[in-house]
Structure formats: C-alpha cells, structure tokens
C-alpha cells in the first residue's frame, strides 16, 4: 500500500513548540485519514528548527465504497415528498427504489452507493485544511498576502510544502494542493548554511537519507543522542564529567539541524561565584552545558556549546565568540554576587514595604511579619528554637531583593542561604532560606531541621489562609497561586516529620494575623481542613493507597491533627486488608443497612443502651459482651494513639457479629425484643466509630 510523505518547510520554529507540533501533525492527519475510511499501518512525525515532517505508511490507495440505505416516503405519498426523496438519493425514478414493509405501511427505500475516492484526492482535500487550522500556540501573518483577509497563519513564514504519495516500487505522485500561494511539490532545502541547495524528494526513505547528506538530522531523538554522546565524550576526554540537563538538551536539539558539540573555557577565578549561579548564567543565557570535576564534584572552568555548523576553521571562531559572551555574563554574575554580599539581608527588608504581595493581602513586608509571628508560634510545636525560627523567618525572603535572584529567579532561597552564611548567621537560620520553600512538589525533598520546618509551615499556611480569606481558592484546573501544592507541602511536612499540631488552631491564628477579615471567618478553618482532606485523598490515590478511608476518618469529626489522621488511615487500611477487617466491615454495613431501613419505617432512631434483661439468645448475649469489651479496649488504644491495637481489638468483634447475623432474627415478633436488637445493632456501629465511620468506606 502507498505511503505519504509530508514536509512543511518554514523559517525557524521555536524550540519549545517543535515536539508538540510534530505530534499534532501526526494526530491530525491520521485522525482525518481514519475518519475518511483510510486505515493506515503506521505514522511517525519529526521536527527540526525549519521543518515539520510526517510519514504515514500503508494507506489504502482508495477509500472503500460506501453503501447506505435511506428510507423514503410511503407508497402513495404526495408527489412533493417523492420528488424530494429522488433528489436526496439521486435515483432517477421510483423504479430504482426498493419497497420495505413494516407495521406502519410500505415504504420506499433508496440505496445510495457512494464510490470511494482515491486516497490521493482525499489527501489533497484534508491536508490544506489541517495546515490552515494547525494549533500553534502563537502564529503570525507575513509578506504581501498578509494585506488581504484570510491569509495563512503559521508559526513563522511557511516557504515550501512537500507532499508525495505512492508505492515504494513506483515514482510517487505529488498530492496537488496549495495553501495561500504555497504549492505542494517535492522540493525542499537542506541545512541553511552547509547545504542550502534545493533537494528533489520521492518518499520518506530517500527523504531522511537525502537530508542527512544535506547536513540535516531529521529525528530530534537522534540529534539529542548525538549531542549527549559527544558532550559526554568531550568532557571525559579532558577528565571532566558533563552535568546532564534534560530540559536544556531538549531545547538545544530544537535549535540545530546539524549539531556540532564544542568545548570552551572561562577564567578559573569565576569559580569563586556559587556553582548554581554559574550554571544558571551559562544555561539560561547561553544555552550551554557545564561540566564538573569528578574528583571534587565541583564545577570546572569549562562549558559545552552546541553549534549548528561545521565551521571551516574547526570551530575556533565559534568557541572564541562564545567564550567572550560567557566571560561577560559571568563577570556580570560575579559582580552581582559580590554586590549582594556588601548588603546585609535585613537591610533589604524595608524595601518590601513598597512591594505588593497581593492587592488584597498587603505588602511583602506585612506578609513577612505574619510569617515571623506564625513561625514563632509553630516553633515549640515542632521542637524548634523560637529565637532561631523568628530570625530565620525574618530573613527567609530577603534574597528576593538581591541582584542575583533578580537575574536568576530559580536560585531564590539558595542565594539567601549563601548570603546568610556569609553574614555569620546560624546554620539552621541560613538553611531555612532555602528549605522553607520545600517541598515544591511530590518529588521534592521535605526539610527536617525543625527551624526550616516551622518557617516552611508558616509560609504555606499563611498563603493558604490568606487566599482562602480573599476567596481565591483553586477551581478546576485553575490554581494560579499553587495552593494545592502548598497544602500538599503542609501534609508532607507534618506526616514525614511526624509532627503533632492542630491545623484548625494554626489556621485560626494565621487568620487572626490577616488585615482582611472575611465575612465567613468562623467557617474558614474547617473549610480549609476539608481542602486538606481532599489533598490527602489525592496524595493517597497517587501512592496507590485507598483514599476512601480519608472520608471514613474525617467523618468522625473533630479531626484536625493530620498525623493522627494519616496514622488512622494507615491502620484502617491494613485492618481492612485482613479477613477480619473485611468481614467486620461487611457486618457493620449490614447492621447499618438494617438500621436505616427500620429507622425509616419507625421514623425514629434506636439510640440508647440495650436492655440486658431482654436478651434471650446466647449469640445476643455474646455480642453485647464483646461490644462492651471491644469498645473499652479500642477506646483505650485510641487514647494512646495505638491505632493498630484499636484495630486488633475491633477484630474481636467479628466472630460474635457473624454469629449474631447467623442465628438471630432482628425483626422479632415481640416489639420490645425487636427494639432491643436494633439498639444492639446500633451499638456495633457506635463501637466501630472508635476508629472510623465504616459507612463511608467503599466496598
């Protein structure tokens, strides 16, 4: 079966858009082919800075013929209806129609045969539409045609389209179409500088090979592999190690068609600047890699650049040029760093009074004061020194106003640590500058130093309570202030450090510190708690744990100690994995179901202690006794927060519950006995509430 080769040749496509564009092109063309009844065998798309390319192989040469039946009017219907039917079906007369009988009468049926079209004609129809409606994140108009309405929008000017279709064994045909004056053909160009001459193409196999001859590596994965291999080798040959950087590699591979890896160096005295700053400078501004010395793990005074040409001087000019720029950039960075060191962190703080954190939440200065107060309050709860915590919170944000962080936002916190150490702060105080931002996501490390933990919690809880107070909660996919991340951060800080604190109390205190007073202030902490519950569920789900148990624990009410909640959930999960747990859950649910039916019937509840005098069967007595014992044992275990022991106690309920349901009829003819048995069922439910609300657990 024939194959399609499509190439869209343009001016330089932004690196960050290339991968998605290739994917979109493949998806759009193949979806459309399938919709047209052309089921293909395989497809692959590629992108370079100057071209999007697609190969689809094994496309049937023709669409299948389509036969459809269309029901027409009844026999003897008015002429207008008959004429309409003939027109719609293309039949010459009613003689060509079938007659079909059904209970409503005899109807004409028209058989419409739509012959399949040649695939190449279908392609000529769908490709221009796909090109015109291509979903670039940003697109533009250009040239003389942009003066007229309806001109093509593309990511950058589109210069040529190659579209061929045919069998491997034959000379393929050009798919004939044009888009805004660009005629599809079979000519493209090679590398902009190394092989700019036009190239005639036939099909994908010769396309990829001819491009390679013309100094274009079509497949981005091949370019990445080549860059990575060469960069590692170049570093290794000089006794260094490449500092790998996937995002940078992806970007650089989107900036070159013919990667040539070269190494340059800079003056060793720049290495006095922190390594992260050097890396940020070289990476962000110059899109070059850094290398380290494997013996010390520290950066070396070398960098690796990826050029797009094989230069006639072997790259000497390119290296010299890049070295010049990197030298200038590093001397800027060094200057920034040294300038920063001249000002103490606390001297920067007054400037925060001019900087608005959020219109409704006041200045950064006000926020820092709030965090300081809250962190000091949290400190004793997490075992942190109050004075150190206060100092740490005081300084934690100060580096935002330094030159280096202004230039490279990604080193915020880290620079704060360096500057704090340089001005002789306590190690814990300095570390908090960096650590209090953590954890930034599910994969990020959680701080353990109590000072950092206190400041991190205060920072996140202030953010959450603040945005809750001004009603800027996350909705759907929108979470512009990363509040979900903050809540998850709080959960992980508490759970992984095994901290005991009442979230409601801390939230209420944070709320009291705000200058805005929300209308429903009293509801805010519990509202926020529900948000934490949701986050906890999401986190457990992502860990593959049961998340319905969170509801079962929260439904007990008064639960705002996250660590206790997490432990309860864990113990409950383990218990429910056991046979005892499963059966007890089933028994409890059964009791609950019977109760709710009977409660409805009688329009009353069956609270209150059962009357021992009314027990007649051994199983009743045994159950009542077991409930009494288990309740006491479980409550004692819960009071000691030994949830595993509480669960083992619960397990003892299983045999008497099973026996009860086996032998005892709840709805006894004697109303008093019935009421008493229902009360006993209610006791099962209430006994299990020592650990969770079993009714909220999914089966």
């Amino acid at each position: 079966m024939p194959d399609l080769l499509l190439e869209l040749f343009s001016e330089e496509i932004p690196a960050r858009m290339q991968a998605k564009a290739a994917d979109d092109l493949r998806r759009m063309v193949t979806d459309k082919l399938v919709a047209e009844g052309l089921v293909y065998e395989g497809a692959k798309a590629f992108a370079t800075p100057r071209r999007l390319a697609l190969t689809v192989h094994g496309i049937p040469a023709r669409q299948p013929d389509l036969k459809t039946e269309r029901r027409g009017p009844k026999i003897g219907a008015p002429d207008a209806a008959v004429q309409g039917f003939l027109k719609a079906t293309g039949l010459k007369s009613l003689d060509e129609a079938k007659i079909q009988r059904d209970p409503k009468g005899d109807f004409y049926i028209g058989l419409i045969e739509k012959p399949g079209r040649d695939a190449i004609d279908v392609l000529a129809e769908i490709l221009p539409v796909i090109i015109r409606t291509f979903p670039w994140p940003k697109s533009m108009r250009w040239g003389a045609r942009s003066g007229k309405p309806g001109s093509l929008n593309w990511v950058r000017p589109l210069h040529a389209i190659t579209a061929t279709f045919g069998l491997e064994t034959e000379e393929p045909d050009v798919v004939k179409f044009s888009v805004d004056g660009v005629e599809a053909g079979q000519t493209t160009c090679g590398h902009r500088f190394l092989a700019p001459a036009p190239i005639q193409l036939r099909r994908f196999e010769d396309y990829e090979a001819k491009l390679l001859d013309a100094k274009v590596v079509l497949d981005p994965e091949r370019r990445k592999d080549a860059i990575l291999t060469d960069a590692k080798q170049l570093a290794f040959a000089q006794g260094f190690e490449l500092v790998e950087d996937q995002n940078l590699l992806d970007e650089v591979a989107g900036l070159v068609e013919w990667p040539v890896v070269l190494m340059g160096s800079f003056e060793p005295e720049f290495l006095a600047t922190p390594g992260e700053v050097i890396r940020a400078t070289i990476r962000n501004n110059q899109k070059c890699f850094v290398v380290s010395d494997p013996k010390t793990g520290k950066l070396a005074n070398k960098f690796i650049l990826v050029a797009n040409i094989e230069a006639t001087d072997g790259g000497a000019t390119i290296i010299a040029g890049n070295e010049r720029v990197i030298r200038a950039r590093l001397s800027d960075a060094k200057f920034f760093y040294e300038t920063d060191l001249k000002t103490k962190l606390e001297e920067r703080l007054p400037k925060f009074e001019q900087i608005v954190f959020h219109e409704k939440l006041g200045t950064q200065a006000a926020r820092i004061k709030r965090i300081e107060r809250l962190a000091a309050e949290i400190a004793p709860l997490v075992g942190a020194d109050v004075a150190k915590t206060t100092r740490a919170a005081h300084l934690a944000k100060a580096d935002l106003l330094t030159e280096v962080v202004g230039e490279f936002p990604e080193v915020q916190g880290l620079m704060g640590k360096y500057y704090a150490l340089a001005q002789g702060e306590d190690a814990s105080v300095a570390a908090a500058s960096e650590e209090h931002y953590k954890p930034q996501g599910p994969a990020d490390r959680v701080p353990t130093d109590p000072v950092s933990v206190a400041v991190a919690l205060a920072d996140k809880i202030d953010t959450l309570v603040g945005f809750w107070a001004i009603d800027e909660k996350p909705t759907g996919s929108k979470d512009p202030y990363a509040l979900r991340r903050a809540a998850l951060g709080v959960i992980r800080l508490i759970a992984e450090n095994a901290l005991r604190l009442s979230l409601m109390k801390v939230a209420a205190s944070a709320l009291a510190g705000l200058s805005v007073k929300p209308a429903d202030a009293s509801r805010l902490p519990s509202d926020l708690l529900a948000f934490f519950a949701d986050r906890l569920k999401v986190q457990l789900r992502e860990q593959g744990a049961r998340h319905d148990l969170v509801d079962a624990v929260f439904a007990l009410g008064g639960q705002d100690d996250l660590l206790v909640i997490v432990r309860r959930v864990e113990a409950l999960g383990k218990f429910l994995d056991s046979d005892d747990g499963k059966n007890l859950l089933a028994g409890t649910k059964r009791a609950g179901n019977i109760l709710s039916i009977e409660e409805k019937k009688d329009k009353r509840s069956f609270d209150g202690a059962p009357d021992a005098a009314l027990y007649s069967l051994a199983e009743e007595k045994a159950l009542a006794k077991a409930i009494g014992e288990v309740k006491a044992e479980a409550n004692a275990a819960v009071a000691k927060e030994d949830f595993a022991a509480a669960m083992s106690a619960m397990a003892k309920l299983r045999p008497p519950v099973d026996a009860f349901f086996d032998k005892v009829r709840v709805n006894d003819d004697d109303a008093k006995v019935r009421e008493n048995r229902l009360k006993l069922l209610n006791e099962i439910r209430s006994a299990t509430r020592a650990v969770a609300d079993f009714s909220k657990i999914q089966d």
Partner: protein
Amino acid sequence: MDASLPAHMRPERSFQGFILALQRFWAEQGCVILQPYDMEMGAGTFHPATTLRALGPKPWNAAYVQPSRRPKDGRYGENPNRMQHYYQFQVIMKPSPPNLQELYLKSLAAIGIDSAVHDIRFVEDDWESPTLGAWGLGWECWCDGMEVSQFTYFQQVAGFECAPVAGELTYGLERLAMYVQGVDRVYDLNFNGRDGDAKVTYGDVFLQAEQEYSRHNFEYADTAMLFEQFKMAEAACKKYLDAGWRDGGNKKQHLMALPAYDQCIKASHVFNLLDARGVISVTERQSYILRVRELAKACGEAWIHTEAGGAA
C-alpha cells in the same frame, strides 16, 4: 565585504565604516536611507518611519541609524557595554519580502560576519512594546552565542493590525562592532578607522557624555519640570489630534498625525527620565505606560487617515 574599501573604511576596523557598510547594503536592497529622527527616543522603533509607516497598505522600505536613549541604562561610563545612549540600526520592509532572512544574513556578510566560521542562529523572541501597543513574532539573532539583532514580523502597531505585515530588523551597532573589531570595552572601539594620533575612539566621542548624562538622569534631572513636560506633551498630543480631523467628503481625514506623534515620543522619553530618577512608583508606572499607549493608539488611528497611512 567590499574588498575595494580603503583600510580605514572597513567595517572590522572602523565604527563609522561599519555603519556605512550597513547603509550601503540596505540601500542596494531598495531601502530609503534616512537620517536619525531629531528627537530623543528609547528605540529605533519609535521613529515615525517605523511606528507609523508600518501601518497602512502602502509599501515602505527604509533603513536608518537611530540614537537610542535609555536613561536607566546609564553607568557613568564605567560598564564595558551598558550605556544610556547608543545606536540602533533599523531596517523596515513592508510588506516583508519572502527572502528577508537571506537578506539579513547577507547584511552580516557585508559587515564581515562570515557564516562559514560563525554560528548564526534564529532563537525565538517575541517582541512586544506595551507603550506602543505593538507586538510581533520573530527571533533574536545569535552570532556565536551573542545576541546581535532583533528580527520581528510586526503583527500589530498602535493597536492596529498590520496589513500587510512589515519585517523589522534592529542591529545593536556597538555590540556588533565590538565583536567584529575584537574589543571588550565599547569605549575602545575605533570610531574612524585610523591609527596613531589620527585614531578617534568611541570613548573619545561619547565617554564624557555618558558620565554627564548618567549624573543628569539619576541625580539632577529636574523632576518638577519633567512631570510638567509629561502633562504638556500629553495635552498637546491630544490637542493636535483633535485639531487634525477633517471631513474629506465620504471619508474622514487627518492632517496632523506626525506633529501629534512627536508629542507622544516626547511623553515617552520624559517618562523614561522620570523612571530613571526613581520618582515613579510601581503602580504609577503602569498607569504612565498606559497613558503613552493611549497617545500612540490615537496617533496610529490618525495616521491611517492620512495620505501616507491610508489607501490611495
């Protein structure tokens, strides 16, 4: 590069030779070579030959040097490449020709940048000017890792769609010349291409000016006067715009778009000076930018109702 040039005129030896080579190249592509606009402005884009001429259907090809004043970038002459006054070389071609990238690369060859040994790259950089209500898509052009030009296809200017689209090239002249001459400090550039006593450097011409203007921009510029000037320029711009409208039969016409736009340029520069003096707060800053943009948009609107800006 033109081999017949005398040594002191060669772009790799002489800053002025460098400028002349660019002018000559673009003149050969059919551009009118203009002289700098006689007003202070932050970038060559503000020149009416770009801002206003980018609007409307009429073809327009021009190139010129424009001194760019960025009061905040002054460093008292102490930074090797940051200045409050520098030169931009600006090319505008409307509609953008299909081979604009090739022309740009040829222009680099004309000033001695050979693509066989230099790594020239087009790196995504979308351009937006909030004060001009303008945006476009294009690239920063890199030569061996250094940004040497800005390449933009204008999509909108003064709030109006560009139809057809103009292509705009901006060369940072000092930076490029430093690279070509191989000097690390802008003040060391050879300005006239001569040697010995006859040599004039960029520092000879501009160092004192950088020191004096830095002092002025950061310390002494009369802010009371500047606040007043901003208001006056804004008021004058609106006044000229109002006065310029004529009812030209079946369509409206404007007869004073250019004088009105001068006041917009003026207001923009005064704002930059006030900003450098640090007397504009973060919130006020936004509102000043909006005020200038409103002027620019109104001037654009007037321009497309003039002969040069409208359909003939």
